């Protein structure tokens, strides 16, 4: 056991001493997390999209202000008329007699203008729908006020209070018939974590073993009272320590900088990544035993890690891929690791709901360990 820890710590120190490895451990994953997070952010998320509208409020009463608040409640970003036209090609003009007409029980009209192209886009529809909802809600509040205060005209304070109170009737909409998909940093962080952890651990592990075989370091260790298992697990332990450093860094950045909710499922995430790093380290060591020459090892590791990352859905949401590719993802450990992380981070699953993924990763790890012991070469 002492030798396992000693070999592991020594290897980790050596990896971290090489400043070049920092690029692959920290800089590259972070760059890709940022880039891919922006590329796949959620443009169609109805709860988050807030299209902007210019509001020219000419109303001389209070209902214009109430209506502005209602527009905000309905998910429109209200801009003043002096904002640049590029910021919001659509707008609403509230007429000066808006309040007066409503209080006089006369129909009041709002003017909606669109300075965009001739062909309406999806944002036009979204703005139109939200505007309509805001009008309906305003009418609803007026009716509610009339019922609550019979014979009294509506007041700004009374309508504002109604706006703040929870709605009597609401619709809770959920996805029906299809699963939501991870988007933004919640997609790019686990994807790149899985890809770079796999890639780095394979390459560092394979190249280190190949180099130590070439230089005779492994043979020298075997001369001492070091068993084959100690040599193997010492090397794997070192790689797992290195993976832990990378994981801790990326998870911390995800939680505290990118706003990905890691904390609520941290135990499951950590357990998944420990298992996954064990699988990757065992495979890296196995490649080092099978292949001589560091350059050849690096080439083979790249040829394994990159397709495995693509297949697993690290580069694009797997939901976009055809069904057979979604099934193929389960043939690689990256697929199971990413599946578990998405379940934990995006879908709020607990450890009990990712046991299949954990079991599959454990099976990969055991198989890789057996193979590494079988093909152990010094």
């Amino acid at each position: 056991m002492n030798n396992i820890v000693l070999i592991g710590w020594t290897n980790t120190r050596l990896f971290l001493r090489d400043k070049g490895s920092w690029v692959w451990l920290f800089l590259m994953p972070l760059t890709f997390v940022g880039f891919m997070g922006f590329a796949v952010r959620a443009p169609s998320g109805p709860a988050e999209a807030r299209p902007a509208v210019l509001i020219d409020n000419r109303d001389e009463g209070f209902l214009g202000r109430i209506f502005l608040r209602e527009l905000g409640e309905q998910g429109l970003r209200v801009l003043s008329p002096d904002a640049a036209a590029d910021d919001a090609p659509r707008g609403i003009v509230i007429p000066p007699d808006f309040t007066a007409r409503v209080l006089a029980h006369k129909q009041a009209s709002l003017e909606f203008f669109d300075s965009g192209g001739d062909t309406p886009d999806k944002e036009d529809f979204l703005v139109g729908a939200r505007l309509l909802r805001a009008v309906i809600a305003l009418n609803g509040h007026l009716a509610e006020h009339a019922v609550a205060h019979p014979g009294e005209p509506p007041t700004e304070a009374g309508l504002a209070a109604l706006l703040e109170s929870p709605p009597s009737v609401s619709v809770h909409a959920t996805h029906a018939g299809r699963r939501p998909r991870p988007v933004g940093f919640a997609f790019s962080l686990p994807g790149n974590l899985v890809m770079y952890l796999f890639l780095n651990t394979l390459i560092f592990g394979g190249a280190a073993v190949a180099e130590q075989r070439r230089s005779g370091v492994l043979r020298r260790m075997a001369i001492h009272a070091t068993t084959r298992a100690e040599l193997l697990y010492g090397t794997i332990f070192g790689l797992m320590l290195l993976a832990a450093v990378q994981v801790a860094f990326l998870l911390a950045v995800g939680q505290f900088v990118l706003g990905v909710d890691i904390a609520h499922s941290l135990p499951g995430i950590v357990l998944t990544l420990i298992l996954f790093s064990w699988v990757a380290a065992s495979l890296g060591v196995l490649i080092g035993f099978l292949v001589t020459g560091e350059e050849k090892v690096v080439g083979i590791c790249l040829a394994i890690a990159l397709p495995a990352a693509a297949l697993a859905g690290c580069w694009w949401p797997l939901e976009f891929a055809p069904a057979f590719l979604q099934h193929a993802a389960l043939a690689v450990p990256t697929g199971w690791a990413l599946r578990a992380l998405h379940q934990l981070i995006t879908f709020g699953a607990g450890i009990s709901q990712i046991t299949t993924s954990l079991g599959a990763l454990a099976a990969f790890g055991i198989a890789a360990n057996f193979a590494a012991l079988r093909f152990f070469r010094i």
Partner: protein
Amino acid sequence: MSLLRARDLSKRFGELKAVDGVSLTVESGEIYGLLGPNGAGKTTTLSMICGLLAPDSGEVRIDGKSFHEHPGEVRRAMGVVPQEIALYKEMSGRENLEFWGRIAGISRRDARTRAAELLDALGLADRADDPVKNYSGGMQRRINLGCALMHRPRLLLLDEPTVGIDPQARANILDFIRGLVADGMGVLYTTHYLEEAETLCHRIGIIDHGRLLAEGTLEELKRHGGETDLFAVEGDFNGADPAAWDGFAEAFRIIQQTERSLTVAPLGDPDPARCLKALLNLPVRVENVTVKRPSLNETFLRLTGRELRE
């Protein structure tokens, strides 16, 4: 009881018999040189002695104990210096010494103390904290040697520890080894450098094609090769069949023959003048004849039919 006793070691790799029935002993305070050309079986023999390779047959005992019965004790009793620089090149000399000491089973504190001692003894104290990759070849060889001494072994196995370094660095290492032996350590030293075997080793075993052809002290080996001189004849021996020459087979034994040279040992009358006269009268064009005095090189030549440098 011998510190090291290897008996009848054999090892085969497929069709190749790499080591064939090698037996040798090393005593405390003795340097035993295993001399042979590349591919003779030296490293394979050493690998079986240090437990890296399991022999097909034969037995190794260190201080009377076998690997099979006492693997831990046997390993602790010996230090091995591999032919390659088996070090972490990114780590300093001190870090390497401490690491290999701890792998050999000594505590962190002892490793620190022992590393400082060895760095002094090896003349590397002033470069102790530099990465090994920045050391010269000779300095790397010294650290390579030091790593095998961290746990104070009683038997040291050195596999060509001076390959590829300059004469001065080689002399430093050989002096250091002499100092270790003076303190009672037993050393098994493989080399293909004749002069190292001649100047360093108390006893020498000559190995070729996996077989130990002869062993003994330098003087014994010279006698083993015969007291007589050898004669190296330069000339045109292309297609020649000296055994068919009249009276040649009765007067000389052929040690080595190439297209341009013939090395022979006299049979019977060793008188140099008569031998020279006979050789100059051979039925081929003879350009030069050289007399070779008995030496380890000549012994090696007689035993193996080739020079060590070939």
